[in-house]
């Protein structure tokens, strides 16, 4: 029986009403009585010693409340920022995590590094005062590229990290891969750059810190994807206050894409300083600061080699990657190029052996951490450009080479040589589906038509896989994670039958208020309008791990289901008592409890009322109807699919036009198809942005950020993108009660490789991202 507004329905979103009427409450919309304004003086240099800071004139300026430097924070015993995932080097030693102070102490290590925090009555006064601060810098030679940073003689970013090395890590069986290559009939080799990106959620980061001298409690409103994690870090490592004296609220958050997972210096400094000035402080990033300080994504340089036998079967895969960590190790930075990357290098294929080594290093650039997909786009990019390149080398159709090497639908569970156990999928089906959607077989005729008008037409595919539903706590703990990655929920019936869901997940565009409500509507028969979802406030919701890695439905949704199961269990007892039947005879379907073989029944609403007004109630049962659950997943989930792009290139201008985009994705069961499609659209758009338009560029000599605004960093706009043809196939995920896999990152993972494969197919030569008109034009001229 399908339930109205239940699982599988494209229910229109609850949250939209406030957003389309201008009633959303984003952080900068919130103001407190007596509020002051914070502003950061930032380093204009990529690398410099701070010889002295003179605050006198600034402190005397109009409206200035106080000014703080790194020395003040150190004197107050405030710790620096930490990285929550420890990586082991090849020799078993620990990675290097140099100090990461919120305000620079004696050295600035990237342009935009925080030097001083000015608190004033108005933002204008804070900015004016910042101009009066005199900092005497001794400039040092900087290094921004990872290849140069890891080379001999490079400037040393941290004394703690000789040779700028953070770690030198490996995964897989080197000997087996070496042997496989000896026996290979063909070897494909490529050098690939995964360009550095700036996440750019449209709402800039912001913080509003308050200290209550009466209770000793701090309240931090912050643009966070995971407020409890922020509270834990602020409490346990920065030592702002014990967790019970620290409330973190993430209200409506305008996009994250990973960049709002991390605990940053600005939010930390703001909450710390609120006690110093005994007044609320608001800091809001402007876009220029966001480019300088929001953790960047990607920035890998990779050499890959794939060995095939004489029948074009993969024999082995060898990957060597250099990963840029930036100037400091951000919250989860170390995990991105290791356990979120190399573990997915198996792709969708039968690969007998894989060996990956990753050398991560420090540079004088903004820290790099998880950005939509986080490691998995980098893995898919390497695997899928290699597969396409190999097919060209072997003179076979790239989709056929993939089909031949796919793991087959009856092979699950499938253990890869790089830790993961894939649990379900049908890769040939998604490939066939995508090919049908784009009329793959008709391509040659279309290419001829384009050629007749002097245009270059190309088609390219990417068969991506990712590990989502992050993550089984014991598994990630054994790999170095400092936290567990379960999720929490409470399902609370109100006496009159409406329901409030409290979730540890956080919604910043994903539509949880709708999808999570659909779960309860479906399972407990409560009208959709009578279900409310509460998230984002550490005093309201149980401790939760937050939203990233396409985990919210698979892990957070499963916690809600688990809590609802407990509700059903208790409701059966109440129903048995009220209907004078044995509990074993009570049957339940969508919120209706009936006595088997009779017409007696009670609705969940009637039972909830009885639970809160327990005049006629089981003697051994607690009143009330509210249940908590924590859900720790059994395995990762493995969304996978095929995206195919078709492009036309004007060789005279180098402009790439995307003509068609076909996406066939297997996300397991789908709760709200409308929302899932929207997630794919957005992910693909970001992937296209990476492949065509976006790239963070530093001046190699000065270390200055050259792409520091929307005038220089090319964001995808409406007229850069096509419509997307999107569909889903479904092999339910066996490891969680909903059978869901996650959909938030898929597009960003699949799109870059698919699009670059189409472009290089059209050009007949390999180029790196972003495929800007200039780069494409040059390639076309030399074609």
């Amino acid at each position, binding site marked *: 029986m399908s339930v109205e507004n239940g699982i599988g329905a494209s229910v229109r979103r609850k949250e939209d009403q406030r957003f389309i009427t201008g009633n*959303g409450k984003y952080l900068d919309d919130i103001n407190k009585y007596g509020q002051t304004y914070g502003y950061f003086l930032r380093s204009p240099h990529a690398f410099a010693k701070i010889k002295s800071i003179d605050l006198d004139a600034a402190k005397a300026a109009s409206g200035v409340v106080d000014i703080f430097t790194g020395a003040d924070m150190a004197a107050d015993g405030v710790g620096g920022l930490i990285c929550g995932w420890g990586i082991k080097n090849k020799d078993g030693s620990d990675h290097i995590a140099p100090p990461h102070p919120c305000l620079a102490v004696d050295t600035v290590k990237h342009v935009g590094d925080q030097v001083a925090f000015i608190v004033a009555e108005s933002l204008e006064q804070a900015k004016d005062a910042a101009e009066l601060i005199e900092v005497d810098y001794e400039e040092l030679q900087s290094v921004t590229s990872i290849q140069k940073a890891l080379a001999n003689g490079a400037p040393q970013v941290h004394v703690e990290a000789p040779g700028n090395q953070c770690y030198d890590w490996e995964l897989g069986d080197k000997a087996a891969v070496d042997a496989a290559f000896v026996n290979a009939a063909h070897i494909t080799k490529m050098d690939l750059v995964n360009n550095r990106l700036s996440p750019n959620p*449209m709402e800039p980061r912001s913080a509003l810190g308050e200290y209550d001298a009466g209770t000793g409690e701090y309240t931090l409103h912050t643009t966070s994807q995971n407020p409890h994690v922020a509270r834990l870090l602020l409490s346990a490592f920065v030592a702002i206050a014990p967790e019970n004296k620290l409330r973190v609220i993430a209200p409506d958050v305008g996009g994250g894409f990973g960049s709002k997972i991390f605990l940053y210096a600005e939010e930390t400094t703001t909450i710390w300083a609120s006690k110093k000035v005994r007044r609320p402080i608001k800091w809001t990033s402007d876009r220029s600061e966001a480019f300088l300080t929001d953790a960047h994504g990607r920035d890998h340089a990779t050499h890959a080699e794939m060995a095939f036998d004489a029948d074009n079967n993969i024999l082995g895969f060898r990957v060597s990657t250099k990963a840029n960590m930036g100037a400091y190790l951000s919250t989860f930075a170390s995990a991105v190029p290791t356990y979120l990357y190399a573990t997915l290098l198996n792709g969708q294929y039968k690969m007998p052996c894989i060996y990956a080594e990753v050398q991560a290093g420090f540079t004088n650039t903004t820290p790099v951490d998880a950005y939509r997909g986080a490691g998995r786009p980098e893995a898919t990019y390497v695997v899928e450009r290699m597969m396409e390149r190999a097919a060209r080398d072997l003179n076979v159709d790239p989709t056929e080479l993939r089909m031949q090497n796919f793991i087959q639908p009856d092979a699950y569970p499938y253990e890869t040589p790089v830790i993961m156990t894939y649990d379900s999928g049908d890769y040939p089906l998604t490939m066939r589906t995508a090919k049908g959607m784009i009329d793959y077989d008709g391509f040659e005729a279309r290419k001829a038509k384009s050629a007749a008008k002097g245009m270059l037409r190309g088609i390219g595919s990417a068969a991506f896989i990712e590990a989502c539903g992050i993550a089984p706590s014991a598994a990630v703990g054994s790999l170095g994670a400092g936290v567990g990655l379960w999720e929490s929920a409470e399902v609370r019936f109100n006496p009159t039958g409406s329901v409030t869901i409290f979730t540890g997940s956080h919604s910043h565009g994903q539509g949880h208020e709708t999808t999570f409500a659909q779960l309860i509507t479906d399972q407990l028969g409560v009208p959709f309008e009578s279900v409310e979802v509460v998230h984002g406030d550490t005093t309201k919701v149980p401790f939760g791990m937050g939203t990233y890695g396409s985990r919210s439905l698979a892990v957070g949704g499963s916690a809600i289901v688990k809590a609802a199961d407990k509700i059903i269990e208790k409701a059966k007892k109440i129903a048995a008592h009220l209907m004078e039947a044995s509990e074993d005879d009570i049957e339940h379907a969508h919120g209706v409890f009936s006595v088997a073989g009779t017409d007696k029944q009670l609705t969940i609403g009637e039972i909830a009322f009885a639970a809160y007004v327990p005049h006629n109630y089981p003697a051994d049962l607690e009143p009330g109807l509210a249940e908590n659950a924590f859900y720790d997943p059994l395995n990762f989930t493995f969304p996978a699919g095929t995206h195919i792009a078709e492009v036309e290139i004007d060789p005279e201008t180098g402009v790439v036009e995307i003509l068609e985009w076909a996406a066939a994705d297997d996300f397991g069961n789908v709760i709200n198809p409308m929302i899932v499609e929207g997630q794919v*659209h957005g992910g693909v758009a970001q992937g296209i942005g990476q492949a065509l338009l976006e790239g963070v560029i530093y001046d190699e000599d000065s270390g200055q950020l050259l792409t520091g605004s929307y005038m220089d960093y090319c964001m995808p706009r409406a007229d850069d*993108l096509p419509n997307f043809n999107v569909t889903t196939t479904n092999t339910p995920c066996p490891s969680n009660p909903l059978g869901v896999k996650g959909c938030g990152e898929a597009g960003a993972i699949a799109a870059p490789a698919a699009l670059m494969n189409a472009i290089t197919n059209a050009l007949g030569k390999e180029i790196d991202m972003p495929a800007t008109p200039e780069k494409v034009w040059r390639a076309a001229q030399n074609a």
Partner: protein
Amino acid sequence: MTTVSMTVNGKSVSANVEPNTLLVQFIRDNLRLTGTHVGCDTSQCGACTVHVNGNSAKSCTMLAVQAEGAEITTIEGLASGDELHPMQAAFKENHGLQCGFCTPGMIMSSIDLLKRHPNPSEETIRTELEGNICRCTGYHNIVKSVKAASENMGG
């Protein structure tokens, strides 16, 4: 300080502001109409788009004093009571928003677009919305929303 007066969402408003106050600051800070957002500092993103005398304008690019005497409409002024403007309804119906931050500016620009192109092609919609950045939707459903609104509004 200087006095500035205008009509915002049908109400006469007046305030003393610094001469360098931007229209968006006046709207957000003085009038507390926080539906108009600031997403960049180079007039590129369009999150701050409002209507000034019926035409869309980026309110981060105007001084409040330049709007002296003007009729301003913000996102808060679109619906009539509980009845949504057709563009608002179309965005909701077609999932034209995710995080919602760019949405007020996107809706204000889209209404202006339909005023000038009552029955726009997809290409026209995409070209016209070039000044509004959305990072969530990939624009697919925004284009669909605007098209649907044009049909519902009899374009």
